[in-house]
């Protein structure tokens, strides 16, 4: 019997290559959405979402080092202050790794509620950094992204775990 709800089914071990691939796709998504000229405040930060997901799921593969490097790349792409995303990602990754065991005890649909404060923290850390260097508050639209991200948690989790599902084979002799 599982002590956690990490999945209702027994999963195959994750392939590190797949984690790298998903983070890469998240970067492409972030770049892609910066293509539209309207204020895109409400679009979730895909890199943060994927990093939080993997550092909850696989803390031994994704940690603060990868969060720091991803943050630097986002800083350059967004023309923001160098280290702003890096700081936010590192702090949130630490929280995710620490809370990983706790979050995984909840069923998948409740995990989104656990991830929401983490995603909000990404924005809050960046807001604090920028406010301390004298910019004005960009409006509450800035906090819509994390809520959308949390809403996407359930489908995203299934998508990211897809390669780890194995076909259901009923073997009468081995009930597990």
């Amino acid at each position, binding site marked *: 019997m599982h002590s956690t709800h990490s999945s209702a089914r027994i999963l195959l071990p994750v392939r590190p290559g797949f984690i790298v691939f998903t983070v890469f796709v998240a970067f492409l998504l972030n770049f892609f959405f910066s293509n539209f000229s309207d204020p895109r405040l409400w679009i979730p930060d895909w890199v943060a979402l994927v990093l939080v997901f993997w550092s909850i799921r696989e803390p031994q593969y994704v940690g603060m080092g990868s969060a720091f490097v991803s943050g630097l790349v986002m800083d350059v792409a967004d*023309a923001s202050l160098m280290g702003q995303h890096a700081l936010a990602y590192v702090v949130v990754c630490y929280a995710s790794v620490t809370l990983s065991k706790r979050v995984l005890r909840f069923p998948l649909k409740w995990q989104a509620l656990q991830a929401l404060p983490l995603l909000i923290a990404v924005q809050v850390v960046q807001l604090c950094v920028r406010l301390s260097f004298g910019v004005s508050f960009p409006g509450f639209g800035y906090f819509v992204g994390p809520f959308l991200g949390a809403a996407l948690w359930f489908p995203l989790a299934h998508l990211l775990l897809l390669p780890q599902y194995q076909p259901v084979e009923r073997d009468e002799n081995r009930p597990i």
Partner: protein
Amino acid sequence: MDYQAPPFFKRGPAPLALLCFYTALSLALIIFDARFQTLELLRSGLSLLMYPFQRLAFAPASLYEDAHAHFSSLNRVQADNTRLKRVQLENAARLLRVQQLEVENERLRKLLDMRTLKKADGQVARILYSARDPFSRKLVVDKGGIDGISRGQAVVDYNGVIGQVTRVFPHVSEVTLITDKNHAIPVQILRNGLRSVLFGIGNGQLELRFTQVNADIQSDDQLVTSGLGGAFPAGLPVARVVSVEHDAAHAFARVYCLPLAGIENFSELMILDPIDPTPLPQELVAAKTSPGRKKRTARQ
């Protein structure tokens, strides 16, 4: 003496130690970037690595644009063509006169022994994306250090000034819009030549700060660059005054303006060639080269 059993599992440094390390590193980066602007090399390196992936991410959108342009109806192209021909004809007379006036102006300036005005020339760049940072107003364009772009060049579209190049990478460069909160541009009012400085507010508007309550500014006044400060050539249209508030409680009038250029809705723009800074007076040049006072002048 303490004895510890060898660990079963190899683990790296404790998470809290890692957190402290990375937090300290990030904070150091933030402070260095904000206060000393010394991280340009790191930025250019990362930007160079990212460039192919960014182009990959933009591929769907640019493909859509190209397809749209390709399949847009012949009618529209013809309508555009006739409209553009008419506009060109309308402008032709003025352009011819401008050329004649430019020659005349140059001759007169020579007669008066004044410095000749530099002609504004530049190169066309395409906007790659507007930066996702919600705290600032910046664009990234597809011309960089390789194309000879340098920091401080003015950026315009066909209606007026858009902003200024603030960061140059090998393939791309960042343009700070005049509506950015940290941007200021020296302007003068076209109607009466009153000089002032125009600041961005951050919400797409601009403000003429520190204007006397009795200054002669009316709504609908057009503001052009004054050429002071040496970053922007003189005479480029910048903004239009939309409201002037006189409040007895404040020492200054509040003057709000809207940019004339299609800020935040265009796809191509022009980066003007850098203008030569006004040469220093002879005495200052002499002081600068004399060895004894080198340090003092450098600090000034």
